Every structure is written in C-alpha cells, then in structure tokens.
C-alpha cells in the first residue's frame, strides 16, 4: 500500500504512531492552542485579581490603573483564540488515499506543533504577567511612583506570548495538504 515509503520505521509502536490520522493531530493542536492559552490567562487573572482586591481596600486609588495588568492577561487568551481560528481554517479535507501521504502528515504535525507552541507560550506568559501584576498592585498601594516602573516589566513579560503567536503562525503557514490523488 502507499504506506511503504512512509513506514521506514519498524516496530509496532512506531507503526501505530504513524497510523494516527493527521486530522487527530490537527484537532488536538487546535484544542491545545485555545484551551491552554485560556488556562494561562485565567491563572494570571486570579493571581492579580486577588491581590488587587485586598490592596484596594486600604488604597482605593489603585483600582483603575491596575486593571492594565488584568488586560495584559486577557490579551493572552485573545492570542489563543486568534491562533485557533487561523489553525482551523488551515484544516482541509484530503482524499482518503492521501491521508497517510508524507505531505498530509507534515500538515497535520505542523498544525499540532503550532497549537502546542501557542498554548504553552501563552500559559507561561499569563502566569508571568499575573504574578508581576500582583506585585505591581501591592507596590502601587504603598508607593504610587512604582507603578509605571513595574508596568515595564509586565510589558516585557507579555511579549513572551507574542513570540509564541508569531512562531505558531509561521509554523502553520506551511500546513499545506495534498490536493491531487
């Protein structure tokens, strides 16, 4: 069958891996992209939010400025949504004889990898921004000149999510499925 070129690997586990449909890999990649990004965003928001609420009792002035930290965390979830939408537009049907062709597998793996890149980059970015946001709220409550300085750290932190999105989109750009029989 057409798989003889593909199955250079011997052993049943390797064959089992190669027989997993590229559609499966793509779908899991898309799920991870949005699911784990939202996990990171939510984690960051609760870390910042709990400190912000407590600190705002003694220093109510900090609430409006420190919502920026929450917005940075939310941005991470939006990156996940955008990439998931882009990835699902890359998912096309291939004729059934071509499902295990190398081109198909490459496309499947590319979408999977893109999803993992974006998901986990956004997870750690959300965590990072959340923890810094919590410290930012507490410091701002004590001394308002510290806010802008700590915000710079947060901006560097949120750039990490952006790196993940850029690399993810570049990966998924080469996810071309075979069209001819």
């Amino acid at each position, binding site marked *: 069958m057409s798989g003889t070129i593909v199955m250079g690997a011997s052993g049943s586990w390797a064959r089992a891996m190669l027989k997993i449909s590229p559609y499966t890999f793509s779908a899991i990649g898309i799920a991870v992209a949005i699911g784990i990004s939202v996990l990171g965003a939510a*984690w960051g928001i*609760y*870390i910042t939010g*709990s*400190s*912000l*609420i*407590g*600190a705002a*009792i*003694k*220093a109510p002035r900090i609430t409006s400025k420190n919502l920026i930290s929450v917005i940075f965390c939310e941005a991470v979830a939006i990156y996940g949504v955008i990439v998931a939408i882009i990835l699902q537009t890359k998912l096309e049907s291939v004729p059934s004889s071509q499902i295990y062709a190398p081109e198909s597998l490459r496309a499947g793996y590319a979408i999977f990898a893109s999803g993992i890149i974006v998901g986990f980059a956004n997870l750690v970015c959300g*965590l990072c921004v959340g*923890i810094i946001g*919590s*410290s930012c*709220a*507490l410091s701002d*409550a*004590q001394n308002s000149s510290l806010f802008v300085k700590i915000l710079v750290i947060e901006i560097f932190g949120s750039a990490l999510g952006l790196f993940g999105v850029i690399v993810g989109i570049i990966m998924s750009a080469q996810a071309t499925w075979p069209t001819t029989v």
Partner: protein
Amino acid sequence: MYGFEAMTFNIHGGYLEAIVRGHRSGLLTAADYNNLCQCETLDDIKMHLSATEYGPYLQNEPSPLHTTTIVEKCTLKLVDEYKHMLCQATEPLSTFLEYITYGHMIDNVVLIVTGTLHERDVQELLEKCHPLGMFDSIATLAVAQNMRELYRLVLVDTPLAPYFSECITSEDLDDMNIEIMRNTLYKAYLEDFYRFCQKLGGATAEIMSDLLAFEADRRAVNITINSIGTELTRDDRRKLYSTFGLLYPYGHEELAVCEDIDQVRGVMEKYPPYQPIFSKLSYGESQMLDKAFYEEEVKRLCLSFEQQFHYGVFFAYMRLKEQEIRNLMWISECVAQNQKSRVHDSVVFIF
C-alpha cells in the same frame, strides 16, 4: 515546592496578604513618633493619634485620659484586625494565625494564676489580660491549687494542652514554679510553632525559621540573665532552652554555666549575628539590652515584608503592631509622668 509558591499562593492567601500589607502601611512612622514625643499632655497625644489610623478608636474617649485607656484602645484595633483576618482565612493560614496568639494565652494563664496566688480579685485580673489570648474557661483558672488541677480543670480543653506534658507536677504553685511553668510552656509552644512552619515548607518555613530562631535565642539570653543569682540550678536552666535556633546546642551549653552578664556577653559575641547587639552595650550594663533586642527584632520583621507569597508577613505584622503599642505606652507614660527626657530610651522606630 520552594520557589513556585507564586503560582498557587493567591488562591487562598492572596486577599489576606494584600490586606495585611495594607495594614502595615498604616503603622506609625518616625515623623509620627517625633510629633508624639513632643506632646505635653495626654490630650495632645490623643489629638495626634486621631490623625493616624487610630482615630476612630480614640475619638470617643472622654477627656481625662489615662495611659491604660490609650493602650487598651490601640490593642482593640489590633484585635479587630486580627479577628477580621482570622475569619477570612482558610487552612493552613487559619492555624498559623491561631498559633500567633498562643503566646498571649500563656501570658494570660500565668497572669491569672499569679494574681490568684497574691489574692487578687478574678474580675480585676481578667480585665488586665491580653484580649488576643482569651479563651472560654479562663476564669476557672482562679480555682486551681496546683498544676495537675490546673491542667485537668481548664487547660486540657485549650490549645495549650499538648504543651503541659513536660510541666505537670503535683507541687503547689508558687512564684518560682510559675515562672518555670511559663518558660516551659513557652518553650513547648515555640518548638511546636517551629515544627508547624517547617511542615508548611517553602518561603514560609525559611522566613519563620529565622524569626522563631531569633525569638528562641533571645529568650535563652533573657532566661540566663534573669536566673543569675537565683536558686535555679544549671540543669533546670538548660531544660528551659529551646531545641532550635542559632545557639542550639553549643551556645546553650555555654550559657547554662554563665554566672554574670559579662560571661553572657563573652558567649554571645562569638555569634556574628548577635555581636552588634552586644557591642552596643558597655560593660556591666543590661538595661539597654531589651531595647537592642527589640531593634534587632524590628529589623528582621521589616525584612520579611520584602518577599511575597508567604505567611511570615502575618506574624511580622502582629509583632510590629505590638511593638508600636509598646512604644505608645512608653510615650504616654513619659508624658503623663512628666519625664519627657527619657522618652527616647525605649522607643523603637519601625520605619
């Protein structure tokens, strides 16, 4: 996992940590203390304090003020803040907060037992107890004649019960035994608190170990100095020292055989963290030792606020607030007795 507390601490402790840091920003600063030290009467003190966080607590007091009223109202503020935090806390923070008050419970128990020994009225003694250390059956302490009854009637239902196993004897209570009982209970409490913090792990364990070790060492030095010249034998003295801290075990061996303050100084100067404390005192003087220890304690407590996501800030805040109340009491007493030149003898600035 040490280093990764930031990821999960805020689930249960984030709100309360932010609250306690907000309370810390309300502690009196050096400028406030300077204003207070320049007051002529207690009414001036009340006026200055009403501009600080103590305002709502003092404003309704009628005008011949006593120093005890000022101290009582300030302590009431601490108690209100503590109770608010305790009812918002979940495990293990709630257990941690309760541990902080066991020292006051021990002091209250000793106060009532001593007072009963000297035939004071129970109601009068109850009013002098520290509010953080109250528990339900505390008034029954006046009935007990010896330690076994004390334990059986009252203390077995309190959190202090496990600390009594080392000091139950059938001897009647007298002044010497009560002091030994106080120190034995406090030793058991510190060790229990230390073990609890070690079990919590992470940044809490590290910071609290340092603070509790300092407390244990300070108590060792105070026990040594106070028992010089009394009938306390060396073995008894050694039994009162805690089993952790910088001085354990070699420093304790040396302290147990000290017979005067210069020998104590000789022992302590071998330990680099305590050397600056003892070098501030000139030879033969021990009055300034308390103030030097308080200053060192305040420095360490303030440092614990530098790190986020641990429980040490709660302990540190309670201790700093108690120090502030001690400062206010000293300033009010100096002003009330017209001894303003001695005000700076015992005030420890926090910021």
